[in-house]
C-alpha cells in the first residue's frame, strides 16, 4: 500500500421524494453530480473518472462526462453487482486514485421508484445470463429479491434466536431512526395488529411492512486523493475497501439459496478483508450503515461484520441498540428501509455525514464508520474514518 490516501471529498444529492415525482432521472443525476463536485470544492470539468451501477437507467458515463464538461475522462466503469455494487463503486474509485489513473472520480446512483426491478429482470440480448434465475428457480416459485432474504432468514432462524416479533421490532427501530431524519419517508410506528394480520404477509417471514420505502432519488460521491480539497477537515478517508463474490460464486444473484455456504457469504469474505486491511477490529466501529432492503437484511450483516456474536442480534434489537444514541448505532438515518431505497448507495453519504458531524441524527464523536452492501451476489464494503481535526 502506498502512502497516498483516497478520500470521499464530496457528496451530493437531489431532494429525496416518494416515487412518482415525475422528475427526469437524467436531470436528477446531473444535479446530484454537480452538487457532489460543489461539496468537494472542485469544478465539474475536473472529473476524470466515473463509476456507475450497470443497472441504473439514467445517464451513461460518457454522457455524464460530456455534460459536465469533463476536460478528459480517463476512466469509466460500470459495476453490475446489483445492491452489492454500492460500495464497489467507491472501492474502484479509490483504486483508480491510488493507482494514479484518475484524480477525481465521480460515483452515482439514481432511482425512480421500483424502475430498477424492471431494468434488472427484462429480457436483454446483451446480458442473457440473467436467465439462469428463470431457467432454474422460477418454476419452483421464485418471486424476486424477497425470496433471497427470506431464504437467508430461514437458514438463520433455524440456528439462532429470531422471529417475526424481532422483525416487527427491527422495522420500528429503523422507523424510529428515520423519525429523526427530516427527509426520510417512513417515520410513523407500525401498528402491531396491522403488522401481524394474516393479510399483511407476503413472502417467508415478511409482511408488506418489511420492505424498503420506495423513492425517487439521485446521489453522488466524489473520490480524490487526500488533501486535494480546500476543506481537508471535511474529507473522509477510505481506510479499507473490498469486493468479493464469496465462497460459492453463482452465475446470478438469485441463485444464492442453492448455495450451502451459510454462514459464509460474499459479505463474510468482505468483512475479513476490511478488518485485515485496516488492522481494526469490529470494536472500533462507531457507526454502521448496512444494506437494508428488508427488516432482516441488515440484522444478518450486523453479525456477519462481527458487530456482535453469532445469535446475538435479536437481543440488540430488543435493547434498541441501533439508535444514534445507542451502544451500536446502525443506519441512524433510517437506512434505505425507512429513508428511501437507493440500492445501498445513500449509506455512503450517511456515513460521510456522520464522520463530518453533519448528520440529521448525529452519532456523538464518530471516528470510524462501516458501510456494507448485501450478502448476496458479488458484494462490497468499506471502513471510513473522519479526518484528523
Amino acid at each position, binding site marked *: 500500500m502506498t502512502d497516498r490516501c483516497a478520500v470521499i471529498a464530496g457528496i451530493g444529492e437531489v431532494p429525496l421524494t416518494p416515487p412518482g415525482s415525475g422528475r427526469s432521472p437524467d436531470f436528477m443525476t446531473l444535479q446530484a453530480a454537480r452538487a457532489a463536485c460543489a461539496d468537494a470544492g472542485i469544478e465539474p470539468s475536473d472529473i476524470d473518472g466515473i463509476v456507475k451501477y450497470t443497472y441504473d437507467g439514467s445517464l451513461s458515463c460518457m454522457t455524464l462526462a460530456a455534460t459536465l464538461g469533463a476536460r478528459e475522462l480517463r476512466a469509466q466503469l460500470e459495476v453490475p453487482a446489483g445492491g452489492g455494487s454500492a460500495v464497489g463503486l467507491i472501492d474502484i474509485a479509490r483504486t483508480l486514485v491510488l493507482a494514479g489513473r484518475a484524480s477525481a472520480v465521480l460515483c452515482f446512483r439514481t432511482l425512480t421508484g421500483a424502475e430498477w426491478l424492471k431494468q434488472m429482470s427484462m429480457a436483454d440480448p446483451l446480458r442473457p445470463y440473467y*436467465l*439462469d434465475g428463470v431457467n*432454474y428457480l422460477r418454476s419452483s416459485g421464485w418471486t424476486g429479491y*424477497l425470496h433471497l432474504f427470506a431464504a437467508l432468514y430461514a437458514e438463520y432462524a433455524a440456528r439462532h434466536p429470531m422471529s417475526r416479533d424481532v422483525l416487527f421490532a427491527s422495522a420500528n427501530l429503523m422507523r424510529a431512526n428515520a423519525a429523526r431524519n427530516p427527509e426520510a419517508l417512513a417515520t410513523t410506528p407500525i401498528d402491531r395488529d396491522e403488522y401481524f394480520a394474516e393479510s399483511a404477509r*407476503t413472502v417467508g417471514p415478511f409482511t408488506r411492512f418489511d420492505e424498503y420505502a420506495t423513492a425517487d432519488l439521485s446521489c453522488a460521491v466524489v473520490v480524490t486523493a487526500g488533501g486535494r480539497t480546500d476543506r481537508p477537515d471535511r474529507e473522509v478517508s477510505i481506510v479499507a475497501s473490498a469486493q468479493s463474490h464469496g465462497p460459492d460464486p453463482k452465475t446470478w444473484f438469485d441463485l444464492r*439459496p442453492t448455495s450451502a455456504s451459510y454462514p459464509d457469504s460474499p459479505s463474510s469474505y468482505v468483512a475479513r478483508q476490511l478488518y485485515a486491511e485496516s488492522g481494526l477490529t469490529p470494536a472500533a466501529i462507531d457507526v454502521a450503515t448496512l444494506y437494508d432492503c428488508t427488516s432482516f437484511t441488515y440484522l444478518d450483516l450486523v453479525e456477519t461484520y462481527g458487530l456482535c456474536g453469532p445469535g446475538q442480534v435479536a437481543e440488540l434489537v430488543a435493547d434498541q441498540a441501533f439508535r444514534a444514541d445507542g451502544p451500536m448505532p446502525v443506519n441512524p438515518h433510517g437506512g434505505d428501509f425507512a429513508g428511501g431505497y437507493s440500492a445501498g448507495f445513500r449509506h455512503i453519504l450517511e456515513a460521510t455525514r456522520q464522520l463530518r458531524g453533519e448528520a440529521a441524527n448525529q452519532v456523538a464523536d464518530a471516528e470510524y464508520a462501516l458501510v456494507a452492501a448485501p450478502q448476496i451476489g458479488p458484494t462490497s464494503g468499506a471502513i471510513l474514518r473522519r479526518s484528523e481535526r
Partner: protein
Amino acid sequence: MPNYTVLGPCPVQGGVQALADDFRATVRAHRVAVAQACGRCRTANFPPLLACRSCGSYELQWISCGPTGTIGTYVTVHTADATPSMSIPRRLLDRVPYTSIYASPDAVPTIRVAALMVGGQQERLKVGAAVTFDVGADLQLMANLTPEH
C-alpha cells in the same frame, strides 16, 4: 461421497441457454431431480455450468440426484396479492400458499436443488427436514415431507 446415477452426457459447447434446454429435456426424459456432475473428478454442481468448477473439464454429465433430500432453506409465498417487488409465477397463483424448497439431495449433499411444495404439509416445514422428490406430468420437481415429519 456422492452416490448419484449418471443419466447421460451434458454437452456444454452450445452455451448457457442450450444447456438449460438440455436440462429440461433431461428432466422430461427421466422424471427425476437432475443436476450436473464432472465426468473426470465427479464434482457435482447445480445450477449447471459450462465447465467443471473444480477441475475445469468440459466432460460433464447429467445425473439423477436420487429420491430423497434434506431441506437447506425454504421460502413460503403466503399471498397471491403481490407487492410491487414480487412477481409470482402465473401458473402458481392458484396454488398459494406454496413453498420454494432448496434441498440437498442425500446422494449429492454438496449441492442444493430447487423444488416446489404445496398443501398442508407446509405447516410442518423446517430446515433440516427430510423430503422426497417427485416429478409429475408437468415436469415440475416437487418436494414432499417424508411421513416421520
